[in-house]
């Protein structure tokens, strides 16, 4: 996994609540057996005027000029600011894969759906929960200033604004450690093989039916 330490980048606004993972990456793209290449189909139904299917040459498709990410001022954005319950619905990890492939490394919102939130950390994306009023301030700043940038420092747990005081944020200590170091969870868990075996031995006595005949 790609480590996340600091990030300075343009902020793009996704000004609607309950953005679901079906919207982030529509179902037809889930047929892929690969982990990469989802970026061109991020927000496909909103982003293009035609209906997208896997295998299409996306560069030839007509973009929806009204969709926020198609506006010139948000090109190259690496931070997405969103509304409440971002990433709700399906557990598809294709959603963070698509966001990451497009270039987003951090998402700021008042709340996230649980599974999506977990999936972000597995893919080098930092989801940041901030108070609704602070998120609103960021939205207003993004709308008011073209090329508005934020600087995120994960170690210090701060967001630096061009104008105004720094914003602090919370992050789970274990997830922070993994993200800062780009660590693979599986490798870490496999360091606890003895604990897992001990649990299984104990459990086989307590609940043998869970371990087959």
């Amino acid at each position, binding site marked *: 996994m790609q480590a996340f330490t600091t990030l300075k980048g343009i902020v793009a606004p996704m000004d*609607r*609540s*309950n953005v*679901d993972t*079906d*919207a982030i990456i*529509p*179902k*037809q793209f*889930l*047929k*892929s*057996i*690969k*982990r990469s290449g989802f970026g061109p189909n991020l927000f496909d*139904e909103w982003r293009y005027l035609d*209906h997208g299917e*896997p*295998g299409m040459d996306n560069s030839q498709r007509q973009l929806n000029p009204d969709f926020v990410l198609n506006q010139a001022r948000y090109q190259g954005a690496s931070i997405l600011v969103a*509304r*409440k*319950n971002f990433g*709700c*619905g*399906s*557990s*598809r*990890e294709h959603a*963070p894969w698509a966001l990451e492939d497009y270039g987003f490394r951090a998402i700021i919102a008042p*709340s996230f*759906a*649980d*599974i999506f939130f*977990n*999936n972000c950390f*597995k*893919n080098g994306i930092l989801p940041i929960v901030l108070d609704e009023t602070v998120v609103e301030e960021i939205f207003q700043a993004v709308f008011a200033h073209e090329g508005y940038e934020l600087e995120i420092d994960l170690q210090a747990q701060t967001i630096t604004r061009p104008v105004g005081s720094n914003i602090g944020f919370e992050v*789970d*200590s*274990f997830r922070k450690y993994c993200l800062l170091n780009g660590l693979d*969870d*599986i490798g*870490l*868990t*496999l360091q*606890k093989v003895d*604990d*897992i075996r001990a*649990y*299984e031995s104990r*459990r086989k006595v*307590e*609940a*043998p*039916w*869970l371990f*087959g*005949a």
Partner: protein
Amino acid sequence: MAARTLYDKLWDSHIVKTEEDGTSLLYIDRHLVHEVTSPQAFEGLRLAGRKLWRVESVLATPDHNVPTTDRSQGISDPISRLQVETLDQNCLDFAITEFGMDDQRQGIVHVISPEQGATLPGMTLVCGDSHTSTHGAFGALAFGIGTSEVEHVLATQCLIQKKSKNMQIRVEGRAPAGVTAKDIILAIIGEIGTAGGTGYAVEFAGSAIQSLSMEGRMSVCNMAIEAGARAGMVAVDDITIDYIKGRPYAPSEDQWPQAVLAWRDLVSDEGAFFDKVVNLDASQIQPQVTWGTSPEMVVSINDRVPDPAEESDAVKAEGMQAALDYMGLTAGTPMSKIKVDKVFIGSCTNSRIEDLRAAALIAKGQKVAANVKQALVVPGSGLVKAQAEAEGLHEIFIEAGFEWREPGCSMCLAMNADRLEPGERCASTSNRNFQGRQGQGGRTHLVSPAMAAAAAIHGHFTQV
């Protein structure tokens, strides 16, 4: 020991190790796998040269991509076909039990596992699918995970987790005639909202929940995720235990008494602490119909399409208007006047035998209305289909003009050929009315099987 909730008990009994910061390694008893969220996990295992920790804990089936029409020709879409074949190959390579497309036990992963007795009380159960919450109906801790976590469970039998808070949703009293488990859960989501359960594991309790069959409890827990909850669950009772007895994966006869004794404890203790309690009166719930593009946008059949102008929260009003625009609805229209183009009876929410019986009861001796272009009945598994056919339900549906299909996820998410065309309006027994969920531009109204069947017969929503 202090009084504990059902969730506390399930959590405590699966802790391998807890770190100082509260991060725990949680042991997983059952892992369900389908074709969409697993290929990248198997690829990850291969690249790292890792093996499966406990292959017998895994049960696989293809469900999202499979055709619901004649399967003798295979899958025509080459991309879908490759995904299903990849699952077959991965199961073969890693020696995983798979109910393949031509196996009668194949079906929607959340239908087949309980049906086989592979979902048991006291288990932790995961799947790369958000509707894994379904299995909580058995007094199990069940939740959806992403593909990285699928790989993690395959390799380690564990997940790194933090404990959620406890919520109890109590539904007391007797639901009026025509009000089903689906109406109860839609009413709950209408009450607490799609993020109302975020950060919580929810226990559904109260007399209206206890009186539900296992099928009904599964419908309720299935949609716990639509309320944002990590998991939904129902305490174990005789209904749970009777359902499991004799199923292929149920404990053997000699282990049965010990298992039942352990399961009897899978209830919240008297006086256990819940961080939040929500109360609903079942007698006040009417048949529900969603009107918007989020499951929380729901009213009863007796209501009208809500008016954004009457909403004081400006952001919310804007969202309501956007939903009405997408749905092609006008505020103030009685729900019972809304006509439908298609009807879908199926999905992991409502494709079990009880659901099909409820729909057949309405359809019997009737005809699908002329304005309804297509009415699909998609059983949740090959075994549900066989049971329905043994009861003659398929004949009722076919005579009424419904299409009787092969099992799978089908038009719930339209990854196969079953889908809505732009602008088409559907009465659907599925779980998500998101924009484009059932096909780009499609308009979904979430309802119970009885309401879906009634909409097919009358051509519009109606009192059931």
